């Protein structure tokens, strides 16, 4: 298994946001994480990426225990996260945003003497073109609309060539057509990368994911292949229940 | 000025570098005013060596870095023949090198200070610890008591002065109960006041400076120090500093300086310069000893005497003459340089604050020796 998170509990004050949740993702697997609002999806993603420290539980990645790793160390181990709330670097250009993500793992010497810059240029422009942002490459990211910022963030998350990509609601604010395109853009990475994706749009999830995990009130309600989940009684129930 | 328009030779240039802005601007402005007055007077009397005097004033801004820059203007741009100024010791320290060593110019320092300044070509015309303590402390012991406290601001003047004062106190049978130093801007003295009261100190020989001194005296007063017969002593207290506290809070405070304004009642020459000063500069900047105004006057006059004797203005000739220069009249009386010492003998007065003004209670017999260098 590429990623194994087990027994993750996260307590905020009185609230137990995650209650022994678990998630396993294999190599080259696209894994969907679904559940009602406040069920702990984002919190679980953050615990995996290191943005939150779980109260208890263990995360291992490529057979190493990374529970005590900082976000930087996790990123260097090959994880990459797109936050639910977009957080691009507003006054830098789109180009620089991507470049920043691309060169993150270079050594200090490389950074100083810019040996990688030419090599990176092609990649930056390819990414931007793929995400239909190339014509705005030299504008500051702040000038993008919300949806465009989502694209940029996905591009940045992809740029680091991660082994595991964590996307928290990447298609928020996108139309059906735009979602479809996003799905297409994600497909090719399956060659070298696994994906955990949080989404509310079931159709989208169904289209691209191999397996699903359903969270409800901090607990894993069900986990399995798409068809297993669709047949699951408990899951159907929460879809009928109102928040 | 017109009368000099066709003078044969260029004017003699006098540089003043003093704190025109910043926390002690009141002193610096008074010094600058005195310089203007003296220069005007000399020029009115026909100048020096037949040449007019020209005054160059620069601000030292209580900021050593600004000061050094401005002093260089005096030396390098204006090429003055002499610089007088600097009020605090740190200022003197900062500017003496650009003036004397790098600038090869004569420097006169007019303020009362801690002594020990023995740099060649640097002449001091304000009182030294010996001049302020030798007669004053015995008076305090007689009129206050034997137990002294030495609360002080933490810088070189109090440190050095206290060493001397302690010697005199002990030589006269007194005792120093404690000697303590505070950051310069300390404004709360409850711990100190408590020690003074509980140790039954007779005399507080104070070298705390503003802004701390106001609250300090007030706290002492409120704790009943004066009521119980304690005596305040402070050797930089002059007319300027009287307003820091209400009269009652410093009733009986004793000071020892080379000049007090009350002397104008007994001394016609003092009355004359005081009147001339107030006529020209009626504002807030008082002609007072603690702000170096008297030292400035004395310094300029001694220098005038020296230039006259030397007959030229180059540094070495003037310094040689200034070494033993004398003036018969000055603020508080005559003054003369002690040969080889570059310090100045002068008369000293002990005065006591009564209801917001000073009363002279003691005078030195003749000129007091600075005992420096």
């Amino acid at each position, binding site marked *: 298994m590429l990623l194994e998170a087990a027994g993750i509990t996260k307590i905020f004050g009185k609230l137990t946001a995650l209650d022994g949740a678990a998630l396993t993702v294999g190599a080259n697997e696209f894994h969907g994480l679904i559940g009602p609002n406040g069920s702990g999806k984002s919190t679980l993603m953050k615990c995996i990426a*290191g943005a939150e420290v779980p109260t208890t539980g263990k995360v291992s990645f490529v057979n190493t225990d990374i529970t005590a790793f900082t976000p930087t160390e996790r990123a260097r181990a090959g994880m990459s996260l797109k936050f639910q709330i977009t957080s691009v670097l507003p006054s830098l250009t789109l180009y*620089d945003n991507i*470049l920043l993500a691309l060169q993150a793992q270079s050594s200090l010497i490389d950074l100083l003497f810019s040996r990688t810059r030419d090599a990176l240029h092609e990649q930056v422009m390819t990414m931007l073109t793929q995400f239909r942002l190339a014509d705005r490459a030299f504008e500051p990211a702040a000038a993008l609309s919300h949806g465009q910022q989502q694209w940029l963030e996905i591009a940045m998350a992809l740029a680091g060539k991660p082994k595991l990509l964590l996307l928290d609601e990447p298609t928020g604010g996108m139309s059906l057509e735009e979602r479809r395109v996003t799905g297409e853009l994600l497909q090719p990475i399956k060659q070298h990368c696994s994906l955990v994706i949080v989404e509310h749009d079931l159709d989208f999830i169904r289209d691209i994911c191999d397996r699903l995990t359903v969270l409800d009130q901090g607990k894993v309600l069900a986990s399995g292949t798409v068809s297993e989940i669709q047949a699951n009684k408990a899951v159907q129930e929460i879809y009928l229940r109102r928040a | 000025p017109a009368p000099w328009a066709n003078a044969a030779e260029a004017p003699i240039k006098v540089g003043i570098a003093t704190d025109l802005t910043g926390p002690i601007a009141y002193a610096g402005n008074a010094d600058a005013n005195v310089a203007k007055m003296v220069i005007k007077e000399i020029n009115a009397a026909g100048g020096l060596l037949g040449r007019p005097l020209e005054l160059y004033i620069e601000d030292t801004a209580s900021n050593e870095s600004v000061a050094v*820059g401005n002093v260089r203007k005096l030396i390098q741009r204006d090429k003055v023949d002499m610089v007088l100024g600097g009020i605090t010791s740190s200022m003197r320290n900062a500017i003496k090198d650009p003036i004397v060593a790098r600038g090869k110019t004569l420097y006169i320092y007019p303020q009362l200070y801690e002594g020990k300044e023995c740099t060649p070509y640097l002449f001091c015309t304000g009182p030294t610890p010996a001049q302020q303590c030798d007669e004053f402390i015995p008076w305090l012991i007689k009129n206050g008591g034997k137990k002294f406290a030495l609360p002080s601001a933490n810088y070189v003047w109090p440190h050095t002065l206290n060493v001397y004062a302690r010697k005199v106190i002990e030589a006269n049978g007194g005792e120093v109960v404690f000697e303590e130093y505070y950051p310069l801007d300390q404004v709360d003295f409850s711990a100190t006041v408590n020690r003074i009261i509980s140790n039954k100190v007779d005399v507080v020989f104070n070298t705390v400076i503003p802004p701390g001194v106001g609250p300090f005296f007030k706290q002492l007063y409120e704790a009943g120090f004066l009521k119980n017969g304690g005596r305040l002593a402070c050797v930089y207290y002059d007319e300027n500093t009287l307003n820091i506290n209400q009269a009652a809070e410093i009733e009986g405070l004793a000071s020892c300086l080379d000049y007090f304004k009350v002397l104008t009642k007994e001394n016609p020459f003092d009355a004359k310069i005081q009147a001339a000063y107030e006529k020209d500069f009626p504002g807030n900047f008082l002609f007072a000893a603690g702000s170096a105004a008297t030292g400035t006057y004395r310094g300029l006059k001694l220098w005038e005497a020296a230039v006259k004797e030397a007959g030229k203005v180059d540094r070495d000739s003037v310094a040689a003459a200034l070494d033993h220069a004398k003036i018969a009249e000055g603020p508080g009386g005559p003054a003369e340089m002690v040969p080889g010492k570059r310090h100045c003998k002068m008369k000293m007065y002990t005065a006591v604050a009564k209801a917001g003004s000073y009363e002279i209670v003691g005078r030195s017999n003749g000129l007091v020796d600075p005992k420096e260098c």
Partner: protein
Amino acid sequence: MPKSMGAVKQAIPAAIGGEPDVAMASSGTAKQKSTRKILPVVEGIVLVAALLAPLLLQDYLTVFATRVIILALFALSFDLVWGYAGIMSFGQALFFGSAGYGVALLARDLDITNIFLVLPAGTLIGLTFALLLGGFLLLGRHPSSVIFVSLGTLTGSYAADRLARGWYYLGGQNGIPSIAPMSLGSYEFTEGPAFYYLVLGILVVVYLLCRFLVRSQFGLALAGLRENEQRIAFFGYKAQHLKAIIFAIGGAVAGMAGSLYAFHEGFVWPNMVGVVVSTQVVLYVLFGGSGTLIGAVIGAVIVEGVSFWLSDNYRDIWPIILGVLLLLVILFRPLGLISFVLGERERVGSFGAKPKENVKENVKEDVKEKRNAP
């Protein structure tokens, strides 16, 4: 403060009148406006002026100019940490002053004035102090907020000032006067043209190094740091290390400036480590324009020059006038004087060249060209 700096930054240009200079014709078909490159021109003009200055100025002004150049070096050190990495070092004087004190003690107690010993020593002292303070303030579990760092450094500098005033070995309030001149063999650097060209040379070298630094990809990492430290940590940057490194480099440059200053002025005094000088350097940089190296230099020159002139001509009220001028610049030119000639886009710049030009230009080592492709 939990408030993200990202949001604050984003608001700056719009809120303070600086138009968010988004060069694009229309929403869909955005095209970058061809921007003339003004920065190199400004740099060239300043350099030529600096080279000619001693020939045109009277002696005493050359001495003054020497000091200004040393202060410009100091300003550069602050600009590096604040303008480029977004670390608000409100205590930059601590490194400047401690190096000054350090070399003053070397000269006073050990008679060491050799330029090849004292300058490295001063630089090292600045570096060490910056590493210590920076390590304490910037490293740790939680990333430290800008306000915390600014007040932390300010307090550090304030405490150092008070320590210097209270410590007798350092001369207390009086500082250390009459420092012997810096020497090279039997030659002594006294104030004047030789000293001027010495510090100018040092400034140019340090400037070029800084320029290389901020335009390398390392500079991009710094820009990311300035924008949002937490975010770039998720890319895999060792954000805190980067911060500590740049802070230490800033300290080293400040230390070098401090030791030159001590020898040039011939004395050191507590203010030199204190809040007054710390604030002063911030003023230089903001006045000139932070985030451009040349802005820091221009700021130091203008602030010092104007104060010098004002104190000459408005002797009694010059601090007030200076205050008013500062306020006006901060109000109407929050991005500094440099923003009169430099657009926001060129200031923030981009680390990527546009594709077309990049093909044309095949310059290998020269970083500048790549960034500034016309």
